[in-house]
């Protein structure tokens, strides 16, 4: 039997792509944030969220560490920091 393959909407969430990060991850400094939401808008994974100033953060379970949020931030309030070994292992276990 070959029929159409139907997948549940948004079921890709079970792929924890955060384990792909090899070098660095974004660190949200939460000091100068003006809640412009540019990081939310341009994240290729769509894994950054936040409401008020200085509340934005990314879901490291999905973040692939591309660094575009740090590039786009007009206040330089996001920096890429070296991937800590324990953070990488934690994501893999999830």
């Amino acid at each position, binding site marked *: 039997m070959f029929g159409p*393959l139907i*997948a*549940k*909407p*948004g*079921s*890709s*969430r*079970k*792929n*924890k*792509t955060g384990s*792909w*990060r090899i070098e660095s991850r974004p660190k949200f400094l939460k000091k100068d944030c003006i809640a412009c*939401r*540019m990081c*939310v*808008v*341009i*994240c*290729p*994974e*769509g*894994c950054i969220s936040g*409401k008020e100033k200085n509340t934005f953060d990314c*879901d490291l379970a*999905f973040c*692939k*560490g*591309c*660094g*575009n949020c*740090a*590039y*786009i931030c007009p206040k330089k309030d996001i920096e*890429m920091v070296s991937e800590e070994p324990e953070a990488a292992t934690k994501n893999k276990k999830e």
Partner: protein
Amino acid sequence: MNSEKKPLLAPGHTACAGCGQAIAARLVVDAAGPNTIIANSTGCLEVFTTKYPESAWEIPWIHSLFENSAAVASGIEAALRYLGKKETINVIAQGGDGGSADIGLQAISGMLERGQDILYVCYDNEAYMNTGVQRSGLTPFNSNTSTSPAGSVSYGNIRPKKPMPEIALAHGIPYVATATVAFVPDLQRKVKKALSIRGPKYIQVHVPCPLGWRHGPELTLEIAKAAVETGLYPIIEYENGSLIGVRKITPRPVEDYLKSQGRFRHLFKNPEEIKKIQDIANNNIQKYGLAAANQPSQ
């Protein structure tokens, strides 16, 4: 923009880190909103968003073949019209540059010619990235790809980029625009505007590919911006056949765009080839009047 709404393209998709197409696809679907049906061509976007048996899409989405997203969308649009539901539901057909400019061109042309109420979005990453960076009709001049390799007898792709926006425009459709991931509000405004117009619409979005263009994943937006500001990717908007808007630039030298990409690295040993690319940019600047008023064009 409804900032608190759930994104309609979920995380967990398998795009490469820094994928420009992943950014653009989410921006397009979020601008279109939840009452949207998407027909997708084969390509990176189809593969990375729907790794079997999962889907990253939060809306009805269908993939059939490489060449027929416009035809599938035409059927969806006709069915919605028959059911009297077309007024409330957007239909989008989308694909990459290969699926749009080469393989799917006939189906797109049919869709545009029949006057169907569909938005076609072409995500232009300038080669067949999904299968290993083969040259497409939208690959730019002198780009090094696996089927247009730079070497002793050529500097890469010998042909210029196919003028897809003009080809779409020649069908006499009400709306044609180009956009880029580098200018987010402009891209989302164009999607919303296109969907508010009845009839066939064509939007081409420039999306850097870190893998195929060989640049660092963190440079996606910087490179997309440089493509516009050098004049190599004009951001233009046509309504009912007239050019109603262009993004004005203070032209930068094309080297600013070429230098960070591996696919153009070979050109830096051959300045006369870079000169040819500068000529393409200058032509664009003149043709579309891209230079800001107080800036002399190069």
